[in-house]
């Protein structure tokens, strides 16, 4: 497979009132063409910061970015605003958790498509309207002709998310970031949107990164999963391998805490006690050590490196489950 997107040793530090806060700590990840990757972690694990920084959305004086992010070999971190803007839409696009705040509330749906279609692709307004209806049909929007004349607040959450997906794919990006695309939606609509994203990825041969806190969401729709914790990738494997041969105690705990329909009724849900590590401090131990049932003195005094189990299954643990 050919490499599309390469993140190498990415580190993002925010300048805050409490001092420097390192949200992403040395993350490396390769995304191949057409591949679907899930990035899973709790609130504050750095998953959203990582994906936004990769898109080039986090910039400015108070954000320190080191490492490298390359799209088709082109370094993104050193691009200026206009240059990175030239890649948005055509090369990479993003959809957000809350489609209501991501869409412009005072413009009709149809006119919001013009920005990408007319300005970016240079279409005439008439062609753009036709293409908008095609795109809305592609995302299985009922009655697209009526929808283009509506304002975002007149649509339901699921329909807004469809509009946003249609906009994101308008210029055929080769990489789509989806940041918690279904968290704000009902479970029935969530299923519809996930099916849709899976179909679109195949149809358009687009690579996709799904960022979520819910392992259940990514299990059926990704090729590989990266588990993030405290700003680091702590486990990275193909989706079947991650579930079948879980190495990190954290991943295991995360899987067990998911309420699922096939669990025995009346069982207590295994919760993960404690809280994630403080992002303003340097990491001198395993970030999960305080919450881990298997932690030893070594875990509390040394920071484990990312280790390869041999088949590309990476983990960050001195004592992986199932042995080394």
């Amino acid at each position: 497979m050919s490499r599309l997107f390469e993140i190498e040793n990415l580190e993002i530090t925010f300048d805050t009132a409490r001092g420097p806060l390192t949200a992403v700590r040395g993350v490396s990840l390769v995304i191949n063409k057409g591949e679907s990757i899930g990035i899973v972690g709790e609130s504050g694990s750095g998953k959203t910061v990582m994906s936004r920084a990769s898109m080039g959305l986090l910039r400015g004086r108070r954000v320190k970015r080191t490492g490298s992010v390359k799209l088709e070999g082109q370094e993104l971190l050193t691009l200026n605003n206009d240059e990175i803007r030239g890649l948005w839409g055509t090369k990479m696009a993003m959809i957000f958790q809350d489609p209501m705040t991501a869409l412009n509330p005072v413009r009709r749906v149809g006119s919001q498509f013009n920005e990408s279609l007319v300005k970016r692709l240079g279409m005439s307004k008439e062609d753009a309207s036709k293409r908008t209806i095609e795109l809305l049909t592609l995302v299985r929007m009922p009655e697209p002709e009526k929808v283009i004349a509506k304002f975002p607040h007149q649509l339901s959450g699921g329909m807004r998310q469809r509009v946003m997906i249609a906009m994101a794919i308008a210029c055929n990006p080769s990489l789509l970031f989806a940041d918690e695309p279904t968290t704000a939606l009902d479970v029935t609509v969530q299923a519809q949107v996930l099916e849709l994203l899976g179909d679109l990825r195949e149809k358009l041969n687009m690579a996709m990164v799904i960022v979520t806190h819910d392992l259940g969401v990514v299990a059926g729709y990704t090729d590989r999963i990266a588990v993030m914790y405290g700003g680091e990738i702590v486990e990275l494997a193909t989706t079947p391998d991650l579930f079948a041969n879980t190495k990190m105690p954290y991943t295991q705990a995360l899987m067990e805490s998911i309420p699922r329909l096939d669990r025995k009724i009346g069982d207590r849900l295994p919760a993960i006690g404690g809280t994630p590590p403080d992002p303003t401090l340097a990491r001198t131990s395993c970030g999960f050590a305080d919450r881990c049932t298997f932690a030893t003195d070594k875990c509390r005094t040394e920071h484990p490196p990312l280790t390869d189990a041999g088949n590309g299954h990476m983990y960050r643990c001195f004592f992986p489950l199932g042995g080394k």
Partner: protein
Amino acid sequence: MAGSGKAHLRNTADPVLRVEDLVVEYGAANGEKVQAVSGVSLDIIAGETLSVVGESGCGKSTLAKGILQLIATASGSVVINGQEITKLKGNELREARPNMQMIFQDSISSLDPHMKVSALIEQPLKVWNRGTEAERKAKVNDLLQSVGLDPEVVSQRKPTEFSGGQCQRISIARALALEPKLLVCDEPVSSLDVSIQAQILNILQDMKERYGLSLLFISHDLSVVRTISDRIVVMYLGKICEVATPATLSEKPRHHYTHALVSSVPIPDPTKKNRRAVLQGEPPSSTNPPSGCRFRTRCPAATELCANEEPQLRDMGGGDFVACHHPRA
């Protein structure tokens, strides 16, 4: 869905909560009335957890607010601990409130940001003149400990210093201060991380045992409610479609809507894929609900009968009830 009927109500002598034919209406922009809750009946016996699940807009939160008389109900009756509360006004209703408390989805905004945690939890006790100052303080510490917070550490802090999960613990402690009989939880975990969800659900279970509570649990997520519920009510467009035990609901749902809900729940297991009966479209508007069964416009088994006649809740044995003309086998 749904349907009407009271076949699922039990003949217990004194249920903690008994709701009959409750109707809650909102005024629409054109002056018409919209029935958000359209004739719902349910009961909760002592120590029971009853959950209400359904999609956004099915009326589940309105039902919770209607039961607690936080919004006016158009008709129907709500009996809590033997007292009919829909007719109560002003001070009489206020006197009934200590028995029924509520926790909300957005715990951070339901706590006054200017008050210290200890003051927040003490407030209901002060309002009702319960105990001396020393007794109240001891009670606050006790409540904080029972929800897993260290009184020494948290008492003097303010809600903004806490995470969503911790704020939800504080709201639970506050809701339990008056030792209510009925605790209504409106989506208490849906804005929390999965790992934290489990902590809060476990605390609710512990509190239920410790204080002999009955819970009314509102959620859109079947997988969350099934581990903690004794009975689950499925709502669609203001009416009840199915009442069943958690086991029935997840293994052999009888209503086609419940089946769609169950199969929409993502399974954290990549080997079990493509099992889904994905429901197409979205619920119709409740300003103009379909005739007969309200689910028929999205139902794979709908017939003419469904358009003409509203299904009533029928006893399917084993404590399960379904309102459907053509239930799944």
